[in-house]
């Protein structure tokens, strides 16, 4: 029983990271119908930025964290401006390929700049543990869970209570109509990319104590975030986080209770099952199309 709870908590913590990456997918997908295959690589780059600020320049953890988030938000805008804006409105295949290319590029560049070693960030949460009875919970895992909850709440408020959030939802429903209604769709898209890069950075920095920062970490985790996003229904913010947590728990349980090898496949088997049985996901809504 104790093992079970322990696995559950570490699964939830891992799942929150998947959820944060999936959140980035969902934000961009909601606003522009683009699936950003470079999301994991944005996370990796955010982690490296934070490592540069904290580990190499010796800044305070929180200042370094904020600096990395701000730098990545700018970078997200830049990437949107250069790669995505010229092809908005073209077939999805082109945009998928463009973001795959962007991911490739970021991965190689990060490998060139920071090398291919594993890096670690010293965080205020690295050491402590919380003991409840005989249950031992590491602070770094709890911090991931807490940060995810806070970020989700902020994003929910942003999307539902601000004018900008409403504009984003409008341009995701129908981009052309949003143009006609006077919404500056291009600026909205660029802000969405900034937000999603910032969220990815949070994931990258929070993850740093759990799995190290490495130039390929984005690819591995980014691909794990797909099942999360699909499970929750692509395009639903609470869905992304719930999907991420479920995938995290499934992976953690499969690693503990099933023979070796299942751990890596289980998320994808779940994904295939979801796509087969309920393609719109847990939180997605199915809309009939009129021809």
């Amino acid at each position: 029983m104790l093992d079970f709870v322990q696995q559950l908590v570490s699964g939830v913590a891992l799942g929150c990271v998947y959820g944060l990456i999936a959140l980035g997918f969902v934000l961009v997908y909601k606003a522009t119908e683009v699936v950003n295959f470079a999301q994991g690589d944005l996370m990796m780059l955010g982690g490296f930025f934070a490592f540069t600020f904290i580990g190499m320049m010796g800044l305070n953890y929180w200042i370094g964290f904020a600096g990395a988030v701000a730098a990545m938000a700018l970078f997200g805008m830049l990437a949107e401006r250069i790669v995505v804006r010229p092809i908005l409105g073209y077939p999805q295949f082109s945009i998928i390929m463009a973001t795959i290319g962007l991911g490739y590029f970021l991965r190689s560049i990060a490998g060139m700049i920071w090398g291919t070693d594993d890096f670690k960030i010293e965080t205020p949460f690295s050491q402590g543990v919380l003991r409840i009875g005989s249950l031992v919970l590491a602070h770094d895992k709890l911090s991931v869970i807490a940060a995810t909850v806070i970020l989700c709440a902020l994003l929910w408020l942003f999307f539902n209570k601000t004018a900008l959030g409403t504009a984003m939802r409008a341009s995701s429903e129908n981009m052309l109509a949003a143009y006609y209604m006077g919404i500056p769709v291009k600026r909205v898209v660029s802000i969405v990319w900034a937000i999603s890069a910032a969220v990815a950075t949070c994931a990258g920095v929070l993850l740093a104590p759990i799995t190290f920062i490495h130039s390929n970490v984005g690819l591995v985790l980014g691909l794990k975030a797909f099942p999360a996003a699909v499970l929750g229904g692509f395009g639903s913010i609470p869905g992304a986080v719930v999907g991420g947590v479920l995938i995290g728990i499934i992976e953690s349980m499969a690693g503990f209770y099933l023979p070796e090898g299942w751990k890596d496949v289980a998320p994808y088997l779940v994904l295939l099952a979801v796509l087969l049985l309920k393609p719109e996901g847990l939180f997605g809504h199915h809309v009939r199309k009129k021809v």
Partner: protein
Amino acid sequence: MRFLFKTDYEDDIRLFPHSGYIVSYGLLLAVLLIAPYVLSSYLMSQLVFVCIYATVGVALLILTGFTGQASLGHAAFLAIGAYTAAYLQKYNVPFPVYFLAAGLLTGCIGALVGFPALRLQGIYLVIATISFAFVVEEILARWESVTNGNEGMRVKALSLLGVAVPRDSPTFYFLCLAVLVLTIVGSLNLLRSPTGRAFVAIRDSETAARSMGINVALYKVKSFAISAAITGFAGVLFAHKLSFISPEMFTLQLSIEFIIVILIGGTFSLHGAVLGAIFIVMIDPFLTYLKDDMPGIIAGIAATFGASTATAGNVQSKVAAFASLNGLKGAIYGVIIVLFVLFEPLGLYGRWLKIKLFFQLFPLYKRSTFKRQKIYVKSERNR
């Protein structure tokens, strides 16, 4: 130039529209046939890879370019073909038998993948094929009694009619070339048959295709099966060429490379697959060239512009250091993909068509002939 007056349906679907095509393709084939006796063994080896990649490219074109079903899982089909060949070879099954068996098995698995794909659109399909590829990769790594797990499998030299065909012999190259040519001719014939035109109809509008009485589900599954089967054939050749296969050779990276092949070549014509394959296989020799010769050349240019010997040497060592950076290949891939998507979405073959049209219409050429239209359709979620 020559004007073609089409007066008949037959004129429209002919394999060679006029005799010029026969002459130029004949010349190309002749050049390819004498290539092994002229080129160095390294370039020959690259040419074999071009043939294999182009075969997979044609397979992917049928699925992605002509049926509109994107797939990022073709490395898995290649792996299934390769492993079938390696496994059957252990039991002394003759080459023609396991060649066909690999294609058949991969085709069946492709059809099985096609069934779930019926319900999926666009991005969901891409994600589903990625996860299929991951599952296959993991199975290859774990099913040790058949695949030998992560240690990989040795593949013996191919033996055709009792004669051994080493992987670097001209005969092996001719075999790959023959498979490629047969694939291309077969695909051309497929694409001008009712099946092929059903594929194109499904790509252009599924609703319209259905209302024309096309069984969309059947043709989607067919397209998956055919594409997978061709990839399986290529997998057999791939296994023989490498002479050693292990699960980590068939990763997502390879699937992306196949997509790059058709993206760079052009997704609307079979020429694209071949051009893209040449492009992607030749990046490696190009990088080697960049590493070995380029620094010297740049230093030479610097020297002719009046730089001192010390500066020229400095430039040379800097360029050499840049060219031998570890991730350079990946960065070049990334930049190339983005540039092609942004500026030349029709690929290399599209560029060739534009150049040809420019000279054909010389003073009358209009840039906007090939302009793409932006369509801000309603959300795809509402489909």
